[in-house]
């Protein structure tokens, strides 16, 4: 049983990586995660709202994040996610791999 792969428009695994990275800043619910990714990328990356939830479940199944019900700022029940030690380790591996890939792409494209 391999790692469950994502099916977004980004490079494979990128959404997962972004979610994990976002969660290094603290515990957030799904909407906040989407907002943060958008803000941090200066509105360049827009998370397709719907695909976020399957991605979160997949990350949870792999044991990289854990969800917990809590109360949102506007006093509603929301599910907050946090990074697990496994998830942190996976994020490190993924960032390294991503750096390699983008580096290689950049070299080919002559950006470097």
């Amino acid at each position, binding site marked *: 049983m*391999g790692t469950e792969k994502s099916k977004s428009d980004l490079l494979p695994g990128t959404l997962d990586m972004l979610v994990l990275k976002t969660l290094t800043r603290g515990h957030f619910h799904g*909407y906040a995660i989407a907002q943060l990714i958008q803000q941090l990328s200066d509105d360049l990356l827009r998370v397709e709202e719907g695909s976020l939830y*399957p991605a979160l479940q997949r990350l949870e*199944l792999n044991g990289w994040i854990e969800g917990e019900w809590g109360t949102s700022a506007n006093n*509603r029940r929301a599910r907050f996610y946090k990074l697990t030690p496994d998830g942190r380790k996976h994020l490190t591996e993924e960032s390294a791999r991503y750096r390699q890939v983008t580096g290689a792409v950049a070299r080919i494209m002559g950006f470097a």
Partner: protein
Amino acid sequence: MRSWKRLWLRLRYLAQHSQRQRLLWEEMDFHIESMTQDLVREGMPEREAHAAAHRKFGNMTRKSEEVHTIWIAQWVDDASQDLRYALRMLAKSPGFTAVAVLTLALGIGANTAIFSVVNGVLISPLPFRNADRIVSMFQEMPDFPEGSISYPNFLDWQRDNRSFESMAAYRWANGTITGVGQPENLPARCISATFFPILGVNPILGRNFNATDDRRGADPSVLISEGLWQRKFGSDPNVVGKRLVVGGTGRTIVGVIPASFRLKIWNFRTADLYLPIGEEHDERFFKRDAHWGMDALALMKPGVTLDQARKDMARVNAGLAAAYPDVNAGLKSTIITLKDEIVGEMRPVLLVLLGAIGFVLMIACVNVANLLLARSTSRQREFAIRVALGAGRARMTMQLLTESVVLAVLGGGLGLVIAKWGIAAALAVVPRALPRAEEIGLDGRVLLFTFAVSILAGILFGLAPALKSASRNIGESLKDGGRSISGSRSRTQATFVIGEMAMAFVLLIGAGLMIRTLLELWRVDPGFNPHHVVSFGINPAPMLAEQSPDSIRAFLRQLRSSMRSVPGTEYVSLEWGAQLMQSDSETGFWVEGQTPPARQADLPLTLEYLVEPEYLQVMRIPLLRGRFFTDADDEHSTPVVVIDSAFAQKYFAGEDPVGKDVNILDYDTDASRRSFLPLQVVGVVGHVNQFGLADDAKSSLQAQIYLPFLQTPEMRVKSVALGISVFARYRPSLNAESFFQTMRKQLLANNGDMIVSDDESEEEVVARSIASQRFSVTLLGTFAALALLLASVGIYGVLSYLVGQRTQEIGVRMALGARHFDVLRLVLADGARMMLMGIAIGVLAALGLTRWMASMLFGVTPTDPLTFAVVAVVLCGIGLCACYVPAHRAMHVDPILALRHE
């Protein structure tokens, strides 16, 4: 092990599936609402904002389906892919598959068979309504915890207790029926009106007894069994109200008891006729010191515990002891659950067997694990390629586990067939040892057990090989082409063999101890010779009861002389009272020269046998002193008695008993006055084994007396009409069955109104007294043999594999000058090391485990050194034989060929 965690998460998801979906929707709703609020803040009207958020989010149902796919569908996909692959792999090596499936089928089948016995006997509830509240009750007697209750005490128990909803008494009844076809003697019981209501049994026709039927002077009534109703009355729907003559009394049939009612306990068997117990004519039955073999059932009130019921009865008994100190001093009742009474001593036996068969399955699993390990050697390249192509370690493990579980489930399926056959075989070997035998079968719980055991076995034997294979270094496997010796693998195999040897050792010890027990039991001298003796029952015509004592005696004399004239008869004797290893009968007494105790309750008891002069020769009981009876000891001469050696030792220690008097209770007189019959001791005979080969020595009741049949007191002699037993020794050239048939024919030719039935050879009676031990020996022996076979195959397989792996090494050694003998020693030493370690562990395990068998053993301790030594030698011997074949092959390795292999 991330894959295990993931499996766990998935199973949890599956279990909470609908709740998880609901929560997902809630989560997504929250998201959409947050989006809406942000849009509203940016100035969009609320309705538009809501629609826009929804549009942007996308189809929620599809998202939730996608989530479901992540959790479940992919998983099922993987599993079914593994399953197809596993089936393909197994089909590719049919030889391996067949051996593995057969081995597992044996193990799982035997487990299923034993579990279905345990399930039928111990686990499943009794087939009665309120079964868990029904208890068996007895009156504790000085020599028996389960003695019979006197009817007045029973009635007082019924009236004074606070813990029981209802109580019912039961005892044997005379079941001769006349007037409908041939006279017959049918199994019959007297019961209280409350008996069937307690068990929840309703007649299929008519009604149960009521209080009016169940009292003295009531109109005689009878309940008949469904079987009798079909056989004798042709299933007549109008049978209720018809008359039936039972034991010479005309009775009205009030109901028909369904054939589904079955109960077999010490003193009760499902019968064809049931009579109301309280309607007894004989007034002696209603005396407080009368013990007519009557026991009771009772239904505890809901919520009352066994302990509370016992305390309550202790209170009732204290009251009865104070009210009737003469007979009731120290009165106690024994209360056990009905289930305990039915299951009795079989509980520890069955649990030991279940444990033993578990070992057999483990040995089978270990063998298959070894096969898988050996096979994985040849599949190393396949694994390596799959890993190289990207299969994860967890995925590989799951794949291999799928293969082993498939094997186990196939084995389990075949095992069910073996079990069905095995149950039938086991029940046929020892039919009578097992209570509730008719309730044993493959029910849902057994199927579930088999399925669970199969899955568990598959994981158990599959795990080690799977982990080992999946963790192999790919590079090495690809490099050496699957020929390498893996050190850790052969270590695993050696561990397996050691484990199997240890388990086989424990099983062999179990079987060995039971065999020794049986040998010891057969060596017990029963005090009589059961060979060429047959016993049977005679029911004279019921009207005999109405005749004078003199004519009854004349009938008995004539009966004896006609039996003596039957060809083949050597000796013959009528018998009454206690019957060896079958039923007991006691009387209170005191001996001359001692003061009789003030209270009847304090009288010592002795077993009593009413016999004729030839009884001693029939049973070949030795005469130790004085004389036995002669025909002259009749109703006109001085009443005499013969005692056994145990009686003489206990009550005439150091004296010559011959010529002294033994005074026995005279039950013929009226209740108001206690009197004794003085009997003169004329002889002493050897002690006989009354309570069975295993149990006689344990009983505190050892004293036995013999009374001449013809001196039976007047009132009692009338009871001859209820039936008597005959013991006959026949010529050794005949067999019991044909002799009995000749006897029966001749007796019926003289007197067509008699019933002659229930023949049994004394050998059978003796054998039956140790039926549970024979049952254990048969099964434990079979298990041990199976274990020994599997373990030998195991050690043989592993050594062969190791020899195969070491062919090159052996070739090198031989090329360098090693002799055949050295090679033999090399291989045998490997085998011997595993065996000895296995036996060492087995000894320790057996020392710890055999004490669970203590209650099943006789004349041998659970740690019997002889058994341990013999088993160790046998196991070593057989193990070495299994090692010899591969060692021999190693010895004949051709160095040239072996080296060319490189």
